[in-house]
């Protein structure tokens, strides 16, 4: 008896927490919303990865706000970084007969079955931010997201133009095997190939501040001369700044720092001159997504690959941009 009560209590607790978890990331998280109907309004089912970073939260907010602005009825679900949750969410969208489904796949593979179901139900699918690995490209209409190789390239190009005698680069990689880590590394290497610049040490910092700090601490002791740090995201760069300060050096002056993302904390450091250059990876793709969704629902042709609009920032640009940063 006691055991039954405990199990029930645990279940209730978990359910409550899950509910809070998704509720916390947005007020549109109602899965029991009334069935979509043909009132001329577009109904979009969006299956988000989760709320694993500030970037992702900004991404979610952008989609919710732009949906409201564009008059799109958004059904939003948070998969908490689990593919099975995302598949469940997509299936429920198919049953609710939404007009268009959009999602950021948690992982690259394993989507063929559920996407085929959507195709058979004549519901177009738009991928955002991350791609899926499938031979059948007819399963989705378009992929809207950043070009990570291009981001790496922009970082490398800036360094080439502003090297000022710098030679030795250390690289803080993202999570091993993740698409952004692989592509940002490749783009950067391509850009600096054939110059005096070379990557003397590279290691993963798992996209986290503590990871970046620990790796940088070790680099500062094992690599004799470090001129530049190239971090695959702002957070690792911020960790590296801490390590460089602790070593008695001045970040941004003694050691140049280049990062990718341009989240608020990164921009603050850039404005303060502790980071030298940031390549933007824009999470605010809500507007572009809504435009694409309208076209897709209206039956218009859309390009199979749409790159998010993103720029780069130097210290001066960061100072003017910083007050407008929402994330």
């Amino acid at each position, binding site marked *: 008896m*006691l*055991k039954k009560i*405990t199990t029930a209590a*645990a279940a209730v*607790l*978990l359910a409550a*927490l*899950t509910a*809070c*978890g998704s509720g*916390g*990331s947005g007020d549109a998280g109602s899965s029991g919303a009334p069935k979509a109907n043909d009132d001329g309004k577009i109904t979009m089912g969006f299956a988000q990865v989760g*709320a*694993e*970073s*500030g970037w*992702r*939260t900004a991404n979610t907010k952008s989609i919710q706000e732009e949906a409201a602005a564009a008059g799109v009825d958004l059904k939003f679900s948070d998969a908490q970084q689990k593919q099975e949750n995302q598949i469940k969410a997509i299936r429920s969208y198919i049953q609710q007969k939404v007009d268009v489904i959009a999602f950021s796949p948690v992982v690259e593979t394993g989507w063929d079955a559920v996407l085929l179901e959507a195709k058979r139900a004549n519901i177009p699918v738009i991928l955002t931010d991350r791609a899926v690995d499938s031979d059948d490209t007819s399963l989705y209409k378009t992929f809207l997201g950043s070009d990570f190789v291009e981001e790496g390239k922009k970082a490398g190009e800036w360094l080439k133009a502003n090297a000022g005698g710098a030679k030795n680069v250390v690289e803080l*990689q993202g999570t*091993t095997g993740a698409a952004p880590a692989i592509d940002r590394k490749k783009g950067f290497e391509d850009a600096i190939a054939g110059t005096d610049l070379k990557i003397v*040490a*590279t*290691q*993963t910092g*798992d*996209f*986290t*501040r*503590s*990871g970046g*700090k*620990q*790796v940088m*601490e*070790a*680099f500062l*002791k*094992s690599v004799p001369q470090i001129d530049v740090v190239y971090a695959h995201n702002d*957070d690792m760069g*911020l*960790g590296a700044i*801490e390590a460089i300060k*602790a*070593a*008695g050096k001045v970040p941004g002056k003694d050691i140049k720092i280049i990062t990718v993302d341009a989240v608020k*904390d990164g921009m603050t450091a850039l404005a303060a001159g502790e980071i030298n250059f940031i390549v933007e990876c824009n999470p605010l793709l809500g507007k572009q997504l809504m435009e694409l969704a309208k076209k897709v629902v209206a039956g218009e042709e859309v390009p199979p690959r749409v790159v998010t609009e993103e720029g780069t920032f130097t210290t001066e640009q960061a100072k003017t941009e910083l007050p407008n940063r929402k994330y």
Partner: protein
Amino acid sequence: MKNRLLWPVLALVALLILNVVVTPTFFSLRLQDGHLYGSLIDILRNGAPTLLIALGMTLVIATRGIDLSVGAVAAIAGAVTCTHIAAGGNPWVAMGLALALCAVLGLWNGFLVSVLGIQPIIATLVLMTAGRGIAMLITEGQIVTVDSPVYRQVGAGFLVLPIAILISLAVLGLVALVTRRTALGLLIESVGVNPSASRLAGVRARTIIWTVYVFAALCAAVAGLMISSNVSAADANNAGLWIEMDAILAVVIGGTSLAGGRYSLTGTLLGALIIQTLTTTVYTIGIKPEITLVFKAVVVIAVCLMQAPVRVRVGGRVRGKQGVPA
């Protein structure tokens, strides 16, 4: 007794030698802005949270339990503190709040295990899963950055040596004193060996089990403060991620059996140092990220194999009976 700690010591020495061979300056220390600076200091500072959590874990494991929720508790502690400081709160009050909340979480774990009799691995799994959700809820999914000189000291500060490792060593000393200079250690071990027999012999098994879970949660909370203070930010998703596994590994490398009973605090200290040295080694000697995990696995397997009971018997040594020096 000595031979049980022999292999961990050898493993640690071997790792350090490997580092010196690859990087001759590995042992060099200098004074930088009034504190010691060098790779060894990094190992001590970055290993402090793991050591602290492993200490709590040692006592829990000695009662034949396990606490999987420590990583999530660490994340919650950082989240509460940073959110409070970011809202303009006093850092001391913020840290106090975090410790109090985590003590409550420890009470919850202890309640599930000692009163309701749920298997520890399941009971603490509840909080392991739910805890990060709670932390996310507190930080609203954002990385909360704070700028508080007082709070920075906990994880990144120095009194010649890093403050973090001083805290961990102080707790180690305290635990050694309380459990080895009183009968408490013996009682904990007896609960681990046989809870029913201990209860019949008049040991308050339930209270002891409850206490070790609260202690483990408090250790996790302080470790969480160190982790988040080290980078002056609370990252609900990544702070203390998988640290419960590192802590359990540290305890096991240190020679404490997961079956409960006899435990070794010195062993846990060695285990935690080995794990951190291993991580620093990977960064220092430049092992490729793709094969980092394999390298770590090989070292861990080697240490565990060397420690295996059969190996000890082949060595022709007899295990000590009692009285583990802390």
